[in-house]
């Protein structure tokens, strides 16, 4: 699953010390990253973390306030026109005119980008075949299913053969089967050579698709790497325990050399271990038995992207009520 940095070293998106504020609220706070040509790069984060603000700056819909950003070799501030010509975008919400036909949507887009007639028509045929919407060519988009709409939007994003395709939460609201089919399309497009910049808050999606992942929270990048590297930061295994006296157990176990970190949960706690968990477990059981702490639950697993996400953002889902100051800006920050 891990397709590490095999795809060339040439940077295609370079972001340096990017900052963006809405009033007093810093939606993006001094982030830097590089996406290399041909990669699928995922930007992962809870709602309101700053993902969409960053994407909107890169696609030139928001003007850059502080820092530097370039896409396909063009500076987003100095050369926004060139950036626009080099990219394709699939927006977070469906952005299709309900009353235009599938063909008209693509025709309009091609015309917007000034594609010559013959090339435009040929490209529409190719793409309708690629996303399997030929049969729907003359139907209005309001009659399409959610998955079809997304496919049409991906086709639209590819109309102009962009060097970078931005996908802002492309599978949001789709059923699991449609999502997986969407992943196949995305991979196919990437294999044709298009660099993909993806934002998502589905961990499995990022894990499955990405060559490289950055997790962003509160406007800052908290960690970057391949999904394998990110999982490895949590150690080799995670052992989850519930005991009769969790506090005492944590105190006893925290100094064991094999244990990298301990995460206290509501009913128990997780041990992130550096070594093979199955070899560490007997020792842990001995320690607990010697201190007469009763063990009620034990469970061993490999770290998943979900664990990585929870570890670095501290939350399974952003608790929106708990942070009213942020809540005020959720809509803007979430974009």
């Amino acid at each position, binding site marked *: 699953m891990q397709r590490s940095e095999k795809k060339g070293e040439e940077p295609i998106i370079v972001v340096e010390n990017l900052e963006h504020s809405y009033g007093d609220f810093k939606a993006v706070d001094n982030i830097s990253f590089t996406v290399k040509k041909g990669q699928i790069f995922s930007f992962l984060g809870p709602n309101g973390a700053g993902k*969409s603000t960053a994407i*909107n700056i890169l*696609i*030139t*819909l*928001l*003007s850059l306030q502080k820092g530097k950003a370039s896409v*396909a070799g063009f500076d987003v501030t100095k050369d926004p*026109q060139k950036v*626009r*010509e*080099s990219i394709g*975008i699939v*927006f977070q*919400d*469906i*952005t*299709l*005119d*309900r*009353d*235009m036909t599938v063909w*008209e949507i693509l025709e*309009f*887009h*091609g*015309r*917007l*980008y*000034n*594609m*010559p007639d013959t*090339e*435009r028509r040929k490209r529409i045929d*190719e*793409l309708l*075949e*690629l996303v399997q919407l030929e049969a729907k060519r003359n139907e209005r988009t309001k009659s399409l299913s959610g998955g079809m709409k997304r496919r049409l939007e991906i086709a*639209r994003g590819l109309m*102009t*053969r*962009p*060097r970078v395709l931005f996908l802002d939460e492309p599978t949001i609201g789709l059923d699991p089967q449609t999502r997986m089919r969407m992943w196949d399309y995305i991979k196919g497009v990437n294999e*044709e*050579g298009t660099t993909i910049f993806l934002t998502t808050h589905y961990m499995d999606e990022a894990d499955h698709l990405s060559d490289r992942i950055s997790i962003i929270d509160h406007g800052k990048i908290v960690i970057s790497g391949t999904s394998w590297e990110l999982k490895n930061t949590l150690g080799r295994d995670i052992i989850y325990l519930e005991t009769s006296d969790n506090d005492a157990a944590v105190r006893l176990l925290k100094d064991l050399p094999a244990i990298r970190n301990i995460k206290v949960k509501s009913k128990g706690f997780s041990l992130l271990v550096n070594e093979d968990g199955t070899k560490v477990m007997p020792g842990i059981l001995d320690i607990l038995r010697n201190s007469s702490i009763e063990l009620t639950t034990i469970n061993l697993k490999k770290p998943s992207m979900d664990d990585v996400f929870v570890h670095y953002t501290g939350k399974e889902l952003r608790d929106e009520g708990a942070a009213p100051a942020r809540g005020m800006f959720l809509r*803007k920050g979430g*974009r």
Partner: protein
Amino acid sequence: MKGQPRPAGCSCAREGGNMAYGFMTIFWRDMVRFVRFKTLLVSSLLQPALWLAFFGIAMASNFDRLTAGIPVAPGSHVVGYLTFMGAGIIAMTTLFTSLFGGIVILFDKNWGLMREILASPMNRNHIIFGIGISGVTKSFIQAIIIMVFGILIGTAFFAGFSPVMTVVGVAGILAFVAMFALGFLFLSAGIAISMESPEGLQGVITLLTMPIFFASNALYPIDTFPEILKVISVYNPMTLLITGIRYFAIGPDFVTLGKHYVYAPMDIAWAFGGLVIFTLIMFTFAWWRFRKAVVT
């Protein structure tokens, strides 16, 4: 897509690309939508004719009876009220159509469609121009329908004109309609890109139409207005438009409701010049609003 030689990037707009016709894309889409909604299409074409048929005939029968006793200098060209207000109806229809012409921008903004357009390499001015020519096209169709229908029900448009004069007359009317429509379409587009809700836009438009329509010479002469209202009316783009329409549809010298209208060619040139200035100001306003617009 498989096996295609893959040029790097879009082969279309490269090297600065010639995007001089970007507005045609916006125009094309607006026209696709215009003919797609059949009820809207038919009603927008029928409505001005109905105004003329009902309001026009009702008012004309009253006014013509009331003014029948007013003595008229011999030899003057007396024109019935229906003909007089027919010009006003063309102007009114153009005003309404143009003020609502920008609403598509607001819908596009709210539905997220504007993002596709704003993120494209097309210059934003082309959105304004595209909305402009699409609105002008609609106004042309409506103006022609009113003229044809008006003649059918008895307005004396182009009465006594030679064929050449009639052609010049129609061209003159359309030139005035185009300039006026562009001004209000730019205004409408500028407001629409700045607003959040269709209700708000509707409110602003209603607020605007009332004084523009009634403080003009659409339905009655403005000479008897109180001084302040008269000043407003004289510089009202609506009055300028109607002056132009009457000149080209009726002639430079006629009497209606007991008032003698005489237009010198210079008056007409001034009226058109006024509309050009108005339209330029409105374009500047729209350009400024679009430059400021952040749609994410």
